């Protein structure tokens, strides 16, 4: 596959970093891809805006940071305002309609999906919002197979939570596929 550069951005509690790790790990361990994940730490660990970079490629990845993402996910207005302008022309910009109003014109495919509301309605547990987001992303892009993600979740999440996560993932997949081109 061509080198894909992603930036996940949002705020502390949203599980943005976890999502980025799951995606990268799924690609690296179950899709035979190379993957690098790097998150930026604030001057201190105190909450605020978070950002995680993921690079996926079938070649070696040397430079581990993303300067211009071809896929950008913004889960807060703050993140959107801060990062939306660095996306590569023709890239994909995914936001959640509950948190972000896409005010800007950017030379990229801007997709706005009600992932958060869907999670609240269908599952009722905000913790799995990030997994739903991941599902949506995969539905849109097929960067990795859903099974790969489930494998990773299986390794990391207590079994009794696994089902809820699967549902969130599938919920997202649906949302993603339905709005995929």
């Amino acid at each position, binding site marked *: 596959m061509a080198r894909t550069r992603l930036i996940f951005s949002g705020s502390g509690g949203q599980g943005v970093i976890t999502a980025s*790790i799951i995606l*990268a*790990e799924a690609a*690296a*361990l*179950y899709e*035979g891809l*190379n*993957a*690098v*994940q*790097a*998150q930026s*730490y*604030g*001057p*201190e*660990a105190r909450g605020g805006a978070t950002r995680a970079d993921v690079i996926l490629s079938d070649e070696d*990845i*040397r*430079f*581990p*940071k993303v*300067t211009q993402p071809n896929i950008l996910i913004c889960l807060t207005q703050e993140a959107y305002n801060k990062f939306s302008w660095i996306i590569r022309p023709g890239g994909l910009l995914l936001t959640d309609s509950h948190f972000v109003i896409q005010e800007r014109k950017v030379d990229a495919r801007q997709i706005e999906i009600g992932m958060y509301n869907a999670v609240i309605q269908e599952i009722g547990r905000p913790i799995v919002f990030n997994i739903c987001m991941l599902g949506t992303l995969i539905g849109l892009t097929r960067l990795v197979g859903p099974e790969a993600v489930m494998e990773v979740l299986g390794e990391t999440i207590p079994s009794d939570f696994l089902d809820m996560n699967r549902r969130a993932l599938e919920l997202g997949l649906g949302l993603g596929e339905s709005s995929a081109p």
Partner: protein
Amino acid sequence: MSKKTLFLQGNAVCVEAALYAGLDFFAGYPITPSTEIAELLSLKLPLKGGKFIQMEDEIASMCAIVGASLTGLKSMTATSGPGFSLKQEAIGYAVMTEIPCVIVNVQRGGPSTGLPTSPSQGDVMQARWGTHGDHSIITLTASNHQDVFAMTVEAFNLAETYRTPVILLFDEVIGHMREKMEIPEPGEIPLVERLWTSVREGTDFHPYLPREDGRLPMSDFGGIHRYNVTGLIHDMWGFPSNKPDVAHGLMRHLVDKIENRVHEIARYKEYYIDDAECILISYGSSARSALHVVENRRARGEALGLLELQTLWPFPADVIRTRCAGAKFILVVELNMGQVLQEVKKAVADPEKVFLANKIDGTFITPTDIRNVLRLIQGKGV
């Protein structure tokens, strides 16, 4: 996919490697960006019956691992700049008493509190000269997780081989980023175990009487031989002495055992060196950006090469002199104001051909940063 393939942070890889190498004792004090090492070991050491302790500060941590090492356990501590400065006195003690141990410094932006969560390679010279008095020390680094594993195991092996503290100089990028790596099978990387004395109970054991090959066999505290260990200049009994010949002998031994073995200790990697007109020299995370540039340029047919240093101290000057002899110019790529640059200038015949591409603003050096400097050198402007 094999169970041995993992996707981890560099700090976690360091932990896996230390355990692979036989780590049994860790003492530390939390500090960004090294803290994950302590956090992971606080669970993984007891799992194998090893010992983890969070001490009251970095000084105590350094002292504790020296004490533990004397009982025969492979020991390690981990810290970053401010803590590394605090450990210097005790590191000097480990050097003087020749106690094997490993000190990890995951570098962050300095000086002082600096930029705690930003990448930097500003402690290279401190690793060599941070403690008082003449001495020598081994320092290793790595640019990717497979090498982080290899160099961490190396560190424990060299510590035992030369009875010396070994410093692992990583940086925030390597410590925090995640990538794929393979855990070698047990035995796949040979381990150097402690060299115990063959002297029997009852016969005199001289803890500081080197063998023919220069190595010093040890005896565990709590074992059959009772001897003295001191940070004062000491004789073969480990007892304080201020006889000039004793002092001279010890000083030479401490330095020569390392400086005379630069070649044995030198670890480095070469990429497209042989016909390279321009050789980049780098290490740690910045070597990733350097390699990125080299590979792109090679693809475009340009004769660039990379010499990646993994042993920083003793500095492999000969390697650099010989391997870079053919190069028209040399570009050192690092995240500081030119610490390795100075050593490279010392090493090569004509220092004028050595240039620097660096970053000191807390951000990571990009291929573009390097390309800009290359253009300047090649007179193409930026």
